[in-house]
C-alpha cells in the first residue's frame, strides 16, 4: 500500500487478497467491506444506465446497508457492498450477470425461543445477556458479523480500538448467547400468540418464533438535502464514523466535516489523529448550542472533558470551525470537490462528510404496529415505551436508541430492563423480584439518558431552506420543487406525498428522504411535525433477494388447486 493509501497505518488487518471489479483487479484485505476496499482503490462511483426508481450508484453514502447506493452484483447476487466482506477471488460487477446465477435455495429453518432480540448493539446485546441470565432462551439477531451495533462496529479481521465494544463481544461469546449474525430480518408478524421473525442468512431463510420480542434497532442518520449531496465523494457523518472506526480508513486526505451533533467532533478529531487534514468543520448550530446543554451534560464530566480534549486537538491542528453555517452545494468530482458553505465560503476537499444527528430507527416497530410518538428531544419519531421498556403490543419491548437517542451509556441499561420485563411477562420473575432488580437500573438509565438526550438536542436539522432544484428523494429523483408542488396540490401527510410522488418508494425505503420530506410538508402547511405522520411500515424491512425469500419449494404443493371464479 502506498503512502496515499486511505487505510490508517499501524492497524492489524486480514491477509492481502485480490478481487475483481468489472474485471479490474483490486488488492484489499480479507474482511474489509467491498465498499471500503473500492473507496481505498479510488472508486467513488460507477456509471451505467440509471433508471427511474434507482438511486445514484456510489461506493459509499450511508455505509450501513440502508441507502442501497453501494449495491453491486457480488458473485451473482445483488448485495450492498458496504455489508459484503472481501474474499479472495470475489467477482464484483456493476452490471447484472447475463444469465441468472444457478440457485440452490435451501429449505427454510424454523426455531423456537422465549425471546428474540432484534439488534446486537449495546442495548440488544445486553438485553440478550440479561435474558439469558434470567433463564430465558434468547437469540440475538443482527445483520453484522458481530455484536456492537453501529457505535461499536468492527469489520472482520480488522483490529478494533478495544474498549467497550470488544468487552461486549467477549461477554456475548463467553455467555454462549445464541446468535444469528449476518442475518437480515425482513419481516416480523404475530401469528397464534407468537412473534415470528422472518430472516435471511447466508444459508437461506429462517423463521425465529418467540413469545416475546425485544427490539433494539438503534438509530439512523438524519440528512438535510443540499445541492450535490447525491454526488460521489459525499458521505454521511455516521458513514464516516463507520469508515474510521470499523474499516479503519480515512474518508479522504482533505475532508470537509459538516452537519450538527457530536459526530462532527468525533469524525474531525479521528481524521486528524489518523493523519488526514480536516479542511473545515461546518456546524449548523450556533456556538452557544452546546453551552445551552451544560446542565444535561454536567452528569458526565468525563465525556465533557473528552469533548473538550477533542476540541483542543482540532485547534492545535489549526482546523477552522464555522458555526451557524450549512453546506449549500458540492460540485466537481473527487478528488477535487468544490464545497460551498452558506455565507459565501468555498472550500476544496476530496471528501465531504455530512449529517445532522441520529433519529430512532422505527421501521421494525412500525411494521409490528406499536405506537410511536414524535418527540424532538428524543431525535424525532420513536417507539413509545413505558418505564419498564414495554411497547403497546403484546410481549414487545424496546430498548436503546430506537426509543429515543439517549446514547451508548443509557442503552445497556434500558436493554437490561427490557429483558427483566420480558422475564416477568414470561413468568420467570415475580413482580417483587422484578422491581428489586429494575429499580436501580432505572435510576442509572435515567441519569445516563440525561446526558445522551442533552447531546441529541444539539444534533438537529438546520432551518436552512432546501433549494428548489435540490434532490430530496434520491431513489426516485424528486426535487424539492416537485414535492412542494404535490404539497400545494393537496398532500398533507407523508403517506399522501408518497402516493402522489413516489417519494420514499425506492430501494432505501424512504430512509434518506423521509425526515426532510416530512419537514417540508410541515413547514409548507404550517402544521406540527407529528400531524404529517410516518410512512406505513411494510415488509421487507430491507431489500431481499427473491430467490432467497422463495426458498426451495414444490410447485405441486402450492395451494393453487382452487382457481379464481370464472
Amino acid at each position, binding site marked *: 500500500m502506498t503512502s496515499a493509501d486511505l487505510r490508517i497505518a499501524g492497524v492489524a488487518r486480514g491477509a492481502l487478497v485480490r478481487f475483481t471489479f468489472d474485471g479490474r483487479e483490486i488488492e484489499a484485505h480479507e474482511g474489509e467491506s467491498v465498499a471500503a476496499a473500492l473507496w481505498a482503490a479510488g472508486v467513488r462511483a460507477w456509471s451505467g444506465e440509471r*433508471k*427511474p*426508481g*434507482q438511486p445514484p450508484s456510489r461506493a459509499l453514502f450511508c455505509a450501513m446497508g440502508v441507502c*442501497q447506493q453501494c449495491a453491486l452484483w457480488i458473485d*451473482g*447476487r*445483488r448485495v450492498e457492498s458496504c455489508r459484503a466482506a472481501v474474499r479472495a477471488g470475489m467477482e464484483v460487477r456493476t*452490471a*447484472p450477470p447475463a444469465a*441468472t*446465477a444457478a*440457485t440452490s435455495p435451501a429449505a427454510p429453518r424454523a426455531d423456537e425461543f422465549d425471546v428474540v432480540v432484534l439488534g446486537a448493539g449495546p442495548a440488544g446485546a445486553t438485553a440478550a445477556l440479561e435474558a439469558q441470565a434470567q433463564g430465558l432462551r434468547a437469540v440475538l439477531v443482527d445483520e453484522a458479523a458481530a455484536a456492537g451495533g453501529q457505535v461499536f462496529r468492527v469489520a472482520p479481521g480488522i483490529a478494533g480500538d478495544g474498549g467497550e465494544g470488544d468487552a461486549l463481544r467477549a461477554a456475548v461469546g463467553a455467555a454462549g448467547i445464541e446468535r444469528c449474525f449476518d442475518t437480515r430480518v425482513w*419481516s416480523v*408478524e404475530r401469528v397464534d400468540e407468537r412473534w*415470528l421473525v*422472518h430472516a435471511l442468512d447466508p444459508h437461506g431463510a429462517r423463521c425465529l418464533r418467540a413469545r416475546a420480542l425485544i427490539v433494539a434497532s438503534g438509530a439512523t442518520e438524519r440528512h438535510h438535502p443540499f445541492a450535490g449531496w447525491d454526488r460521489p465523494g459525499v458521505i454521511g457523518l455516521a458513514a464516516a464514523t463507520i469508515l474510521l472506526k470499523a474499516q479503519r480508513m480515512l474518508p479522504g486526505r482533505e475532508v470537509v466535516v459538516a452537519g450538527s451533533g457530536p459526530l462532527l467532533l468525533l469524525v474531525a478529531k479521528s481524521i486528524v489523529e489518523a493523519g488526514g487534514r480536516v479542511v473545515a468543520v461546518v456546524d449548523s448550530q450556533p456556538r452557544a448550542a452546546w453551552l445551552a446543554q451544560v446542565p444535561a451534560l454536567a452528569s458526565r464530566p468525563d465525556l465533557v472533558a473528552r469533548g473538550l480534549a477533542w476540541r483542543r486537538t482540532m485547534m492545535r491542528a489549526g482546523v477552522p470551525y464555522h458555526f451557524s453555517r450549512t453546506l449549500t452545494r458540492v460540485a466537481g468530482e473527487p478528488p477535487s470537490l468544490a464545497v460551498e458553505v452558506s455565507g459565501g465560503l468555498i472550500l476544496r476537499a476530496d471528501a465531504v462528510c455530512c449529517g445532522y444527528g441520529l433519529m430512532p430507527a422505527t421501521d421494525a416497530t412500525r411494521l409490528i*404496529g406499536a405506537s410511536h410518538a414524535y418527540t424532538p428531544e428524543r431525535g424525532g419519531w420513536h417507539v413509545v415505551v413505558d418505564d419498564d421498556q414495554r411497547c403497546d403490543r403484546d410481549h414487545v419491548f424496546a430498548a436503546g436508541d430506537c426509543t429515543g437517542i439517549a446514547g451508548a451509556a443509557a442503552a445497556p441499561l434500558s436493554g437490561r430492563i427490557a429483558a427483566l420485563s420480558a422475564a416477568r411477562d414470561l413468568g420467570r420473575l415475580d413482580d417483587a423480584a422484578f422491581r428489586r432488580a429494575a429499580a436501580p437500573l432505572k435510576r442509572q438509565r435515567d441519569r445516563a439518558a440525561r446526558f445522551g438526550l442533552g447531546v441529541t438536542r444539539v444534533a438537529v436539522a438546520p432551518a436552512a431552506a432546501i433549494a428548489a432544484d435540490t434532490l430530496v428523494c434520491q431513489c426516485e429523483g424528486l426535487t424539492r420543487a416537485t414535492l412542494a408542488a404535490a404539497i400545494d*396540490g*393537496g398532500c398533507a401527510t407523508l403517506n*399522501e406525498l408518497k*402516493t*402522489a410522488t*413516489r417519494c420514499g*418508494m*425506492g*430501494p432505501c*425505503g424512504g430512509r434518506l428522504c423521509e425526515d426532510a420530506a416530512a419537514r417540508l410538508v410541515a413547514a409548507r402547511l404550517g402544521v406540527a411535525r407529528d400531524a404529517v405522520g410516518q410512512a*406505513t411500515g*411494510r*415488509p*421487507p424491512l430491507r*431489500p*431481499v*433477494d*427473491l*430467490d432467497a*425469500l*422463495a*426458498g426451495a*419449494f414444490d*410447485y*405441486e404443493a*402450492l*395451494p*393453487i388447486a*382452487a*382457481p*379464481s*371464479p*370464472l
Partner: protein
Amino acid sequence: MGATAALRAAQGGMRAIVLERESLAAGASGVNAGTLSLSIKRVRLMPYAMRGHAWWRAAGDAVGFKQTGGYTLAFNAREAQLLEERMAMKAEAGAPIEMVSPAAVRAREPALSDRIVAASFCAADGHADSTRTGAYLRALLREAGIEVAEHAAVDAIEPGFRVRARDKTFAGKRILIAAGAWTRGVAALLGVALPIDVNVNTVSVTEAGPVRLSSGIGHATGLLTLKQKGNGSYLIGGGWQGRGSPEQGRGEVATDTLLQNLQLARYAVPAIAHARVIRSWTGFEAHVPDYYPLAGALPGVADAYLLACVRGGYTIGPCIGPLVAELMLGIEPALPLFDPARFAAAA
C-alpha cells in the same frame, strides 16, 4: 367507480359531489398492481372489461398505460385443460385471446419457465401505474366542475338525502354508494344489510434492474399477475391473502401467502430469481358470494344506488360507473347492470 359515475352524471346534467373518506383512489384503485388484463376477467364481465380497457387506453400516458400483450400459463395437464376451457369461453365473449404453443411463448419471452405446458395470448392485455389514478381522476373531476370533498368519511345518512361527513353536511336528491371495501358500513347507515366480504390482496415490487420481460404474465388459475415496468421493477400480485379488514385500518402482509405468491412468480419467470423485493403491501377488495358486481338501485331505499364488489374493478370501473350513472339519469344503461336486490333477502 364513483369518479367515473360522477363524470357521467354531470355529463347528463346532474350536479354531483364526490365524498371521499381519504384521498381520491387511496383505496383499491391506487394500490393495486395496475393490471389491465382481459385474460383474467370473468366471462360474463368481459364486455364490461373491454369497454373499461378502452377508457384506460384513451387515458394513455397520464396513467402510464402500456398495452404489452399478455400470456397466461399452465404448468401441468390439469392447468392446461383449465386454461383451454376458460380461454375458449373468454374468446367467445369477445376477448382477443388465442392459444399459443409453449415454444412460441419461449421464443417471444425467453425469460419464462421452460416447463410451460400450455399458454394463451391476449394482445389487448396491458397495465397502468395505479399510483397515478388519483391525480388523473382529480384532474378529470376538476375539469368537469365536480366538487370533491376528501378526508370526508361519511358517518350518517338521512333519507332525503342529508349526508354527514365529519363536521359537514351535504344534501342531495340521489345518492350513489361506491365506497369500495367500506360499502357494507355505508349501506348500513341507510339500514341496508349486504353480504359483503373483503379480501386482502397482496402486491409486491422489486427494485429496478434489467428489462427481461415485455408481456404481462398470468396463470391458468388466475392466481398470478406479473409484469415488468419500464425501469425493470417487477410487480407481482394475484390475490394472495394478507390479514386485516377495513375496520382495522390497513391490512397486513401475511408471510406464508407472500412467499407462495413469490414462489409461483419465480416458477413462472425464473429470470426474476435475483431481483430484490423492496416492498410488499395489501389492498382491500370487496366481493359478494357470487363474485359479481353490486350495480344498480340500493334495495329498499328510493333514489339510492350502489356500485361495489366488482372483481377486476380497476379495469371495469370506468365502464360500469357510467352505466350506473345512466340508471340514475333515467337512461337505459348500454349494458345490463347487476341488481343488488338479489341479495336483499340474505344477510
